């Protein structure tokens, strides 16, 4: 397949590389030209603009920071649209923003799929991302071979926006999960109990989770290198809270969790992994 790829950051670069490895012809574009070099070295074609990355291709994929960035690159894609083009955005943005972008692309005759991912940099490199997609079944079927190069658990959730709704739900669970494990560890430590033993005991029961296992271990190692930066988790939880505000949804746990990440960003911990919320709890409880 001929695929355009826009956005070559921590996630986008390995995802594009996996498409090349999968035998696809990949054209890349990134705002900063130096981000494109590793892909060109691996055999990708360089594009001069988002429109150029879409032109003549079967599929165009974006992996950028936020909704305005997605809207901007997709305007470029729409300007170069040819019949049958499928545009896929794998960034994490608000469901309402994704639906709007989908509508604008539809006017230009382009099918749109919102397909945010979970699994982080490790999953992007290994090609084991979870991919949650929203859009028509026909467009999903056409994009699926590309998804299979980048991820393992690939689910077509529903119509346009459904992928982003799923990702927001994912961030609710992971955000509260990280905070829950950090609170359990702060609780154990203030009670004078060895938290590594607590983790070990809990792994066998109903409190087991990947977050307790992986993030919990990194908390014990005090390894706060990202991973997933806390400012990005804050951004994602803000999508959740904005959507809850618009729809009239009561999400007290998410609201409290979003405040903790907000405090992390405000106190200069935004570039650290979201598990650094443990350090914030320790500071608040006089455990430093």
């Amino acid at each position, binding site marked *: 397949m001929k695929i355009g790829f826009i956005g070559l950051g921590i996630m986008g670069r390995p995802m594009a590389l996996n498409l090349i490895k999968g035998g696809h012809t990949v054209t890349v574009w990134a705002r900063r030209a130096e981000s494109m070099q590793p892909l060109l070295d691996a055999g990708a074609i360089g594009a001069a603009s988002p429109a150029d990355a879409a032109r003549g291709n079967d599929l165009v994929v974006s992996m950028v920071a936020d909704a305005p960035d997605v809207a901007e690159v997709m305007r470029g894609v729409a300007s170069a649209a040819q019949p049958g083009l499928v545009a896929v955005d794998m960034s994490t943005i608000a469901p309402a923003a994704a639906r709007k972008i989908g509508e604008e692309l539809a006017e230009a005759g382009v099918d749109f799929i919102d397909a945010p991912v979970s699994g982080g940099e490790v999953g992007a490199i290994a090609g084991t991302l979870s991919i949650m997609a929203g859009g028509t079944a026909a467009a999903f079927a056409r994009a699926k071979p590309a998804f299979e190069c980048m991820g393992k658990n690939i689910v077509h959730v529903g119509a346009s926006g459904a992928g982003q709704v799923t990702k927001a739900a994912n961030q609710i669970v992971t955000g509260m999960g990280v905070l829950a494990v950090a609170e359990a560890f702060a609780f154990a430590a203030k009670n004078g109990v060895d938290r590594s033993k607590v983790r070990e005991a809990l792994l066998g029961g109903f409190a087991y989770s990947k977050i307790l296992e992986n993030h919990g271990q990194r908390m014990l190692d005090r390894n706060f290198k990202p991973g997933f930066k806390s400012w990005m988790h*804050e951004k994602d939880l803000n999508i959740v809270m904005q959507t809850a505000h618009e729809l009239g*949804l009561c*999400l007290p746990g998410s609201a409290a969790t*979003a405040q903790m990440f907000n405090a992390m*960003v405000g106190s200069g911990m935004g570039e650290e992994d979201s598990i650094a919320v443990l350090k914030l709890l320790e500071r608040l409880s006089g455990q430093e």
Partner: protein
Amino acid sequence: MKVGFIGLGAMGRPMALHLHRAGHELAVWARRPESIGDLPARVCATPAELGACCEVVFTVITSSADVEGVALGKDGLSDGMAPGSVLVDCSTIAPDAARRIAEKLAAKGIHLLDAPVSGGEQGAIDATLAIMAGGDTAVLERVRSLLECLGQRIVHIGPNGAGQVAKACNQMIMVAAIQATAEAMRLASASGVDRALVKAALAGGSAGSRVLEVMGERMVKSNYAAGIEARLHHKDFGLALEAARRVGVPTPLAAVVGQQLNTLMAQGWERDDTASLLRVLELE
């Protein structure tokens, strides 16, 4: 002075009338012309036309987008207002939006004063609003006599946006106090104690407040007719929480209160008074 007015709702209409009564020459524009009614004013066809015939224009409208549209959109105020004229925006909008609008108007030599108000419809009718102003001192001084027709407490908070920050602070305190009052009333009733007596006793002590007096009374009487429509507090709370996250300030109480307001909206009580936060507690 020739004064323009846009936004003739529950707040705007009495404010416009006060300016008229003080002897100012009034011009108005309204999205829905029927809202003008018998107001003694020149009626303009567009915000631009209004801007062209006024030295000072007031806006009292709902959202950041509405203010941006009226000020900067097609046939907007900025197409008509002369350099040196002043837009006084009494709406409650995001501090960032106020700063953005001020910057764009400044490029045409037009001054913005963000001047949100507190005191509700009754305060607007009685001309006792609290006015929190953001903008240049000289600009505030030029319109101070007009503001004095509307309220008694006029505080210059700082540069553009600062008035809206103060309003966000006002809403955080006020709605949290409504929530606290609702929880106290719920505790009293659930314990078999008379709400009215609890409220009467508290009014004399350290928990006494204007919110307890006004909203507490509505709760005692289960009278949820607005007052202040809860949807407006809900909107303002969204602005306040967003302003807090922009500067990385944790506001854990406001976050929880925001969820109670979301619940209120989900129950379809958006046009009722915010005292309905008590009804939210009664759902549980």
